[in-house]
């Protein structure tokens, strides 16, 4: 494997008195799609928040693109190109679609703002028709497009997508997985957290399965899909 773009070792994180993540090791190679799977509440979002610096790790190291980032504030991590599209979209509801996208390049790639805006509109033509609309009035699917578009505005080197298909119609879920594949074909490394297990394993090069604060399974997507342990881990049996 090439020198990984993301390397996590011994990562411990949590809230208050409890550790949610109890020593995670993982890697993402450049150009890879890596899926993180696990049932509700195991800590997938917690992992993403720790990677993007909004939650401080209690132990362990996070190395991104040759630099240790586990002690850095979120804005420095964004500046380095690790972009996290959060669960629940977290767009700016009373700002226009255009302003939301512009803020995507607040910290990074500001000089390429207009070129990237054009690129995002090519990926999501629906957003182009709605540049002046208040983001809070977009449909759920459009809001998800906006959240991803906002992430792309920063020219990510690694894109973290936390449940991008949540709440989308089956057709749009299909579209979303197609989009992830396209972005990846263009060379983007992606860390994907998803509920659609089989679809994710089909798409991802590799995957990790999180249970009880640790990765209990990992490997090639196709191999994991056939692994009987997967169902066990997933259902918590």
């Amino acid at each position, binding site marked *: 494997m090439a020198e990984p773009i993301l390397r996590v070792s011994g990562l411990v994180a949590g809230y208050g008195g409890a550790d949610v993540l109890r020593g995670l090791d993982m890697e993402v190679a450049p150009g890879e799609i890596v899926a993180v799977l696990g049932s509700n509440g195991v800590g997938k979002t917690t992992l993403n928040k720790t990677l993007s610096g909004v939650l401080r790790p209690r132990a362990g190291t996070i190395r991104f693109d040759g630099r240790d980032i586990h002690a850095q504030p979120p804005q420095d991590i964004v500046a380095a190109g690790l972009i996290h599209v959060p669960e629940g979209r*977290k767009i700016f509801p009373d700002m226009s679609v255009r302003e939301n996208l512009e803020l995507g390049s607040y910290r990074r790639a500001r000089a390429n703002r207009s070129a990237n805006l054009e690129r995002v509109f090519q990926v999501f033509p629906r957003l182009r028709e709605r540049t002046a609309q208040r983001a809070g009035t977009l449909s759920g699917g459009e809001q998800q497009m906006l959240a991803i578009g906002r992430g792309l505005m920063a020219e990510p080197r690694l894109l973290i997508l936390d449940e991008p298909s949540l709440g989308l119609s089956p057709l749009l879920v299909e579209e979303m997985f197609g989009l992830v594949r396209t972005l990846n074909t263009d060379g983007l490394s992606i860390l994907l957290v998803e509920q659609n297990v089989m679809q994710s394993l089909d798409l991802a090069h590799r995957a990790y399965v999180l249970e009880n604060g640790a990765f209990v399974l990992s490997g090639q997507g196709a191999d994991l899909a056939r692994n009987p342990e997967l169902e066990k881990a997933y259902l918590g049996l």
Partner: protein
Amino acid sequence: MFAPDIILAAVLNGLMTGAVYALTAVGLTLVYGVLHIINFAHGAILTAAMFAAYFAWKAGIDPYIAVFGLAPLFFGAGYAVQRYVIGPSSHGEDRNILLVTLGLSIVIENALLAGFRSDTRTIDVPYGFSVIDLGFTFLSVPRVVAFGASCAAAALLWGILTRTDTGKAIRAVAKEKLGASLVGIDVAHVYAVTFGLGAACLAVAACLLLPTFYVHPRVGNAYVLVAFTIVVLGGMGSVPGALIGGLFIGVVESLSGLFLGESLGQIGIFLIFILVLLVRPTGLFGARA
């Protein structure tokens, strides 16, 4: 009844007072909208700014000139206080921020009392009693200047909030802190900029008030009560609401002064305040929830 031109004159005077009211309210509402706290030090900062303008005048600098130095100075001081005092000492708890700003107001007020006693001071500028003759009434020049400058300051603030990346970051943090962090906005910095902008508005207001008002270690409190009324009236956190609400309150005060007598002028304000709380608690210009 009063003749129409007397009423018109009262409305004009009310608008002029109201513009300065709006300026004192806009910082309060901005800080509320972004940090989600009531800044209890607001009145004390206004007082401090009036003292600063007073001593600038003593040193030979006219308030209308001093404003160009004091506004940036108070921006910087406000920034530093939020970034290095209020922010770190609150540990992210809104309740603590509230107490810290309350403490700050007590410190400022008592430092001013200790330093300058409770004497009332006024300044004497050549244009202090100049008037413009409109035919049916006279307008005081310093109040016309205050009106124009308040409108200009409000327009500048509006431009910052809607046109610049920093302004957009402020609006982003106000509604979606996590989303803001994840696009690389430094939330602590934005908080401090917001607090600084609020303090700068007060510095401008102080320089505009000084030629026609007095200075006293508690002078800010009179304004803060009105400012708070305006903030509630305009919808907590709404900048346009505070601007329109300020003008509105100025006119209400002036008209109720006319009809009820000068000393009862402020009663109209509080009647409206209570009515709004009863009928439309989200404010006349209803900030969205």
